Each structure stands twice: as C-alpha cells, then as structure tokens.
C-alpha cells in the first residue's frame, strides 16, 4: 500500500516537475523513488495487510508481484532513459508510466472487482496514450487506436462478467464471492457461469491469449520500443497477477466450467503465435509474437493445478521479464543507431549487443543453463505432474519452433553481412546490459532462491 502511495506521489511529483521545470534528473529521481517503493513493499513481507475495507490485500503474492513489477520498472526506466529525456512531454510520459505502474500494483493486490476494474483501466488508458506517444508516426498512431478500440471492447465483456457475477453472488468482494461459491455451490444460477466466462474473456484479452491476442503483435510493433518493452513485461506481469487472483483465488472451486476453455486457449496460445512468428522478418514483431507465445507456457502452468503453480509462474515471469528487458534493450540501441541493416552483422558492429541479444534469445528459447530454461522446465514438470502429457508435447514442439525463430536472429547477427559502422552504446546502457546478463545467468545457475520464495 505504501508503495502505491509512493508511486502515485511520484506521479504527481512528475506533473509538478513540469510546472517547476525541473526536468533534469527526473528519471533518476523516479528510479530512486521506485526503488524506495520496492523496499517499502518488501518490508511487509508475510504480513498480509488488508486495506480500506478489503479493497486491497497485500499478501505475499501481491508483495512478490509488486516487488517484481517495481524491479522491472527500475530496469525499464534505466533502459529507456532517452524515451523521456530530451523528448517532448517528458513529464507527461513519466507521470503516465507511473500511474500505469500504480494500476499494475492495484492489479496485483485488489480484493474487489471495483479495484480490479479500475486498476485495469488506469493501466490500459495510460497505455493507450503511451502507445500513441510517438505522434508523428502513423504506426504508433495505429497501434494506439487499435489497442484502444479492442481494449475498450474487451472491457465491455469484463464488465458484463463482473455484473453477472455480482448478480449471482451479491458482492464485489473476492473473499465474499469465494465463500458464496463454496456455500452455494449447487444453487448458483446459470448466468453466473456465463459471467465467469465473460470475465475470462476480458482478462485473457489483457493477457493476449489466443483468440484475443490479435491486438498484441500489431500494438507491440507499432508502439515505441520502450513502450513495447513496458507492455511485454510490466503489463504482462500485472495482467497475469490479476488473472491469477481472480481465477485461482476466487473461481478455483468452479474450475470445471472454465478449465476446459482455458486448456483450449492454452494450446492455441502455444501454437498460433509461435508458428506465426516463424515467418517474421521484423525483430520487434517477432518479439511480440514470442511474448504472446510465452503466455501460453504460463497458462500451461496455470491450468496444471493453479494453487501449486504460483512459484512456477512467478519464476517464469521473472525470468521472462528480465530476459525481455535485455532483448528490448538491445533492440532499443539498434533502433537508436538508425542504420538500415538492423541486426545484420551486429556481432561485427558491437559484440556486446550481439552477445547480450544472443543470451537473451537463448534464454527466451529455453536453453540451459539460462533463466528461461528453468522457467520452461518447471512449467513442463508442473504440467506433467498433473497429467498434461499431451499438452507438454505440444509445448515442447512449440518451443522448438521458438528456437527456430530466435536463432534466425542470432544467425543474422553473427553471420549476415551488414553495415560495418560500429554502434556506440552509452556507458549506463553497457552497465545495464551486463547487469541483465549476469541476472539471466544467475537465475539460471541458482534458481532455487526464487523458486522457494513463493512455494
């Protein structure tokens, strides 16, 4: 909760900075503030405090996800410093990002449908704007509008679901809903299940699970790289946290009604984006598809007995996010260099970028001993343990397909001849990339600490 205050406060501060014209060092101040918020949230570990009439519950789940979101946010700010500095609307952008973070934190900690709804909307509305923040770019514009239109369409379904669930259970409070379900398991009206499915639609839209993923590749491609990175990391974490809260904490008892749908969606989410990504020439768009594909693995862990998969999902998200940040960091640097050949022969132009990108891609592909491997490994174990052998085989095949498209980028970087002009990378980016590299390796070599955290 304190973290939420700090983040919102930072948001206002950023707005005031506009008026006070204190733009220099704003990003660093924000990073420091986020770090402080992260510390504040971690202090409450194991306390599970309920705030404001059960509106928010900062249990360990929420704390872990909030801390993760904040950590990734710090890394993100570090990476995308030049998305702010020297750009127009610097403070507006910072404030929007911060409020989006606030929305994300709400999404991890809500205990009331109202908070869920507001959290999602704060996050979404900020992102609609941020996706279009590159106003001259037609693509950014298009991405923004697509995201907005489809997002609000999906919101309609989410709301419809909330309304129906409310009608059936008489409450917006997750705890009461859950207890109502367990008390009246037999007497729930039919429309309640309809409501649950509609909520499923609304939430899986945010997750970008197939068939509600169509926005994702387009929006990711069109948005500025920094925002794409933000969407595929922070937003994804928040969406999954919210999804987990609703469907594992609240609707777990009626799993029978939605699990089969989710299984179907899982398989589709594994297959469709991974297969589609194979034919992509654009690294950013490829990463977008891959990001959608990774949701499939998380969903696989989720459908395989969600209460025990907390640790798995958290680890997967952590490794995925850190790796993605690394990948986007390189992408950002490459796009900044404004050379036509993109990733071609990157190894010759800047070995560090190529190595970091390779490690990131290897991790995303799930090659040991990197972070991504353990994520996938635990997902597979989880699923196998719960009898999802067939789905695991599909997941194995899709991750092979994944290797194919990730490695095409690697090949291009190392083998293809491109421009020879070296790419200059600023010192802070170098430090960041090395830090991320170390993190990816460390998480791969010593995964135990993170796994046991949420066991």
């Amino acid at each position, binding site marked *: 909760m304190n973290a939420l205050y700090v983040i919102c406060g930072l948001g206002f501060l950023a707005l005031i900075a506009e008026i006070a014209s204190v733009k220099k060092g704003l990003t660093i101040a924000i990073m420091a503030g986020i770090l402080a918020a992260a510390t504040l949230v971690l202090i409450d570990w194991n306390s599970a405090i309920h705030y404001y009439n059960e509106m928010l519950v900062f249990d360990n789940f929420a704390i872990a996800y909030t801390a993760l979101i904040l950590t990734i946010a710090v890394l993100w700010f570090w990476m995308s410093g030049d998305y702010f500095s020297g750009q127009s609307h610097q403070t507006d952008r910072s404030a929007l990002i911060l409020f989006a973070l606030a929305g994300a934190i709400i999404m991890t900690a809500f205990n009331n*449908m*109202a908070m869920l*709804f*507001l959290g999602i*909307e704060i996050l979404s*509305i900020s992102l*609609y*704007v941020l996706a*279009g923040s590159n*106003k001259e770019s*037609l*693509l950014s*514009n*298009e*991405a*923004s*509008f*697509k995201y*907005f*239109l489809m997002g*609000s*369409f999906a*919101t*309609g379904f989410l*709301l*419809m679901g*909330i*309304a*129906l669930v*409310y*009608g059936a259970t*008489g*409450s*917006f409070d997750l705890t009461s809903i859950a207890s109502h379900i367990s008390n009246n398991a037999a007497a729930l009206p039919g*429309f309640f299940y309809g409501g649950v499915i509609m909520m499923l639609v609304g939430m899986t839209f945010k997750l970008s699970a197939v068939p509600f993923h169509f926005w994702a*590749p*387009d*929006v990711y*491609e*069109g948005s500025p790289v920094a925002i794409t990175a933000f969407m595929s990391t922070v937003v994804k974490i928040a969406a999954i946290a919210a999804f987990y809260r609703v469907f594992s904490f609240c609707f777990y008892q009626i799993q029978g009604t939605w699990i089969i749908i989710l299984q179907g969606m899982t398989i589709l989410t594994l297959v469709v984006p991974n297969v589609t990504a194979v*034919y992509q020439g654009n690294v950013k768009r490829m990463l977008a598809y891959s990001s959608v594909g990774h949701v499939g693995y998380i969903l696989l862990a989720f459908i395989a007995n969600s209460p025990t998969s907390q640790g798995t999902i958290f680890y997967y998200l952590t490794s995925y996010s850190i790796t993605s940040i690394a990948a986007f960091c390189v992408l950002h640097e490459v796009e900044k260099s404004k050379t036509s050949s993109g990733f071609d022969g990157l190894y010759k132009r800047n070995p560090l970028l190529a190595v970091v990108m390779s490690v990131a891609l290897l991790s995303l592909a799930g090659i040991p001993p990197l972070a991504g491997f353990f994520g996938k490994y635990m997902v597979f174990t989880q699923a196998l343990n719960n009898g999802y052998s067939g789905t695991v085989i599909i997941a194995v095949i899709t991750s092979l397909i994944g290797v194919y498209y990730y490695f095409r980028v690697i090949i291009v970087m190392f083998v293809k001849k491109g421009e020879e002009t070296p790419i200059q990378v600023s010192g802070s980016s170098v430090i960041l990339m090395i830090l991320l590299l170390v993190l990816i390796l460390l998480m791969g070599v010593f995964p135990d600490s993170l796994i046991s955290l949420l066991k």
Partner: protein
Amino acid sequence: MIPIDYYIWLSAILFSIGVLGVLYRRNAIIVVMCVELMLNAVNVLMVAFSNYLNDPAGQVFVFFIMAVAAAEVAVGLAILMIMFRNNRTTDINVLNRLKW
C-alpha cells in the same frame, strides 16, 4: 415488480446490439459509440441487480463505470483526432499498416 430476467434479456440484447455495431460499422466514432452501448447494457444490468439484491454497491459500481467510460471516451476521441489528422479518415479498416 419486473422480473430480473427481463432486465438480463434487455441487457443481453443491448449488449449484442453494441457488439453488432462494432462489427457492422467502419466509422471509428460510431464504433466507439457502440462500445458505449455495451457499457450501458452493463450499467442497466448492474442497476437491476443492485435493486434486486437491495445492495447499493452495484449502483456505486455504475458510477465507476461511468467515470471510466468518460475517461475512455476522452482519450479515445483524442486518439481518434490524431488518427484523423494523419489519415483524413475515420475508417477503421484503413488502419492496416501493422499486419502479418
């Protein structure tokens, strides 16, 4: 007293009309309006339930929905303006530079 399922049907019909509109029209503004229709379908259902359950929380929720709707419309129309500025049209199908 009007049975609750009437309201559910009404809401369902209204919601479907909203969806129909989103699918049917290509004019972005109308599409946004149709989304508003969907939200209103939810509103009416929410109020009905609230009344039926004798619980004011439902009605309070409707306030939030309205607030969000207003915010969405504001932002959406702003985006739409930029889009019109860039494309000179509000046809949503013109927006397909991002694909494949």
